[in-house]
């Protein structure tokens, strides 16, 4: 059911009240300081945490789940409500970290998810190049992200936000994306080439 009307995105945000636990709060968050688009994107990032499997790390139960944002943080307080919620059934705290535009991979690799805002468009290759082998889910929001080695690219389609996935990159990082994530992606790039 497509949402029609002028405040399509806003209503989408309201509908994101469907989302687990975070639900009502995200709606509130949408009014509070972050643009509605980023409320949804924040929720999506949270969801990606649920639908992607990370390889077991040495100290696998490291207490915090880190969502890193490189460059200018567009989220504001969008993550507030989500931070203390369960992820994958585990009581792990969600932490949002900001990194400078020129942070090295050694620093970035501590993230579980790294969000690369559109503002860093020019530097995709630099950022992503060093992170290839690390189990960091890279999420971008502009064209060319996947081609540069990014894993998930968020797209605004009409009144919705959808995504496309570069499965090759995901596999290379040792991550595994749930089939439902792949199934709902607008585009999946596999080793043999991209296809819908």
């Amino acid at each position, binding site marked *: *059911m*497509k949402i029609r009307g002028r405040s399509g995105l806003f209503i*989408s945000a309201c*509908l*994101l*009240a*469907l*989302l*687990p*636990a975070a*639900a009502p709060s995200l709606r509130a968050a949408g009014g509070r300081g972050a643009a509605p688009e980023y409320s949804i994107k924040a929720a*999506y990032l949270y*969801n990606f945490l*649920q*639908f992607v499997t990370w390889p077991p790390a040495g100290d696998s139960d490291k207490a915090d789940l880190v969502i890193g944002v490189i460059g200018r943080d567009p989220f504001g307080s969008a993550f507030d409500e989500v931070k203390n*919620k*369960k*992820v*994958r*059934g585990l009581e792990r705290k969600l932490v949002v970290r900001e990194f400078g535009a020129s942070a090295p991979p050694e620093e970035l690799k501590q993230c579980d998810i790294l969000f690369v805002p559109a503002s860093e468009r020019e530097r995709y290759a630099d950022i992503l190049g060093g992170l290839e082998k690390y189990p960091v889910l890279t999420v971008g929001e502009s064209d060319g992200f996947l081609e540069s080695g990014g894993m998930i690219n968020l797209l605004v389609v009409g009144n*919705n936000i*959808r995504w496309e996935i570069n499965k090759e990159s995901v596999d290379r990082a040792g991550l595994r994306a*749930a089939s*439902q*994530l792949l*199934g*709902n992606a607008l585009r999946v790039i596999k080793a043999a080439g991209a296809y819908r």
Partner: protein
Amino acid sequence: MTALRDLSIVKKLNLLLILTSCLAISISCVVFLSLSFFSRRASLVGELSALADITGNNCQAALAFNIREDAEQVLNSLSAKPSLVAACIYDGRGKVFAAYGDRATACQEGGQGKVREGTYFRKDYLEVSRRISLHDAPLGNIRLADDMRGLRSSLRHSILAMSAVLLLVLAAASLLGYYLLKRVLRPVLDLTGKARTIARDGNYAVRAEAAGSDEFGLLAAAFNQMLSKIEFQSAELEEDRLNLAARVAERTKELEAANRELDAFGYSVSHDLRAPLRSINGFAGVLRDDYSDKLDENGRRVLQRIAANAKKMDQLISDLLAFSHLGRQELNFAPVDMKELVAEVFGEIRGLFPEKRGIELVLADLCRVNADAALLRQVWSNLISNALKFTGEKKTAVIKIGCETEGNEFKFYIRDNGAGFDMRYSDKLFGVFQRLHSGQEFEGNGVGLALVQRIIQRHKGRVWAEGETGKGAVFYFTLPKGGGNG
């Protein structure tokens, strides 16, 4: 219910057999069908639950990312199961997120909060509602509605099959039952037939056929024994009857002969006796008329005595004649006004006792009877003259005459306050020539009461008397209400 009772025993037992078979089969069928239905339904529920879970899981991303089309696409794949008529996915707040098929069926509860998980048996559908969650966090609910068509049709088929079996069993049981029962019950049927024949024809020579040693066999044996006994006794009875008849015929002949002799005797005696009597009377009369002046006081008295005795003898002969007549006389029955009759007779008799002083007659209302008037007249005549005779010594003779109705008889009585009699000899009263008092005490020849008894007996009544010496007597006689038939 009486119609049922009158059915032949073969049919009755056959009916019973069929009924019990039907009952047994029906119960088994019902139980089996029920069990089968419920077990099938349970497995359908399991199936649906699994399907709901799988489908729900496939919609996790759709719900999480709010992608309706994806959810709808997943739901559409449910078309693989034709009996699934509707499906609905609810979001975490209970609102409808995606639907498939007939919305009205599956997407009822929504919007007011939580959608309950569970299995619901509606009238036409089976609904299964399951939660959709992601890593234990609830995302929403999925509800599937199945129209149970497979279940229904298999139930229909089962019922049809069972019915067919039932009918088949009915037919087979009734045929087989009829044939077998006829064989088993043959002894009883034979017995019934023979009993009917015997009752109708009275032929006790008939016997039932031997029938083994079960209850029927014992019955037949006992029956035959009884028949033998009856046959034997019947023959004996017949013999006795013939004997008796022969004897009765003999006696009757003897009796008739005796009677005839008696009649002849009586007749000749009376007539032959009368002749000399008439002579005596006549000559006595001549003496009285022509020679009384030649006689002295004594002589006239002697003559008087001769005349009196002759008269007495004449009376005796009349009485005897009447008595003997009575046996052969035809009675003429007619309604009789007893009161009138008694009054008349009393007047006559009274006239015969002119020297009597106080005579008090108490005459109650007398019942009307059907009897021979002439003979009754004689009865009253005798009874009343007796009463007057035996109260001769009393200053005032009190005579009470009345009637009572007892049962189907009229009881007449005549009570006097005369000399009475000793009850010890009451049975002699009514014998011929029996007298309880000597001729010196009271007149009479002893035939009167015998006559009364004879007459009353011919009217089919009874006579008896009660008395006490010196205190008077009561004479009773009864007449049956309808009038006796001589």
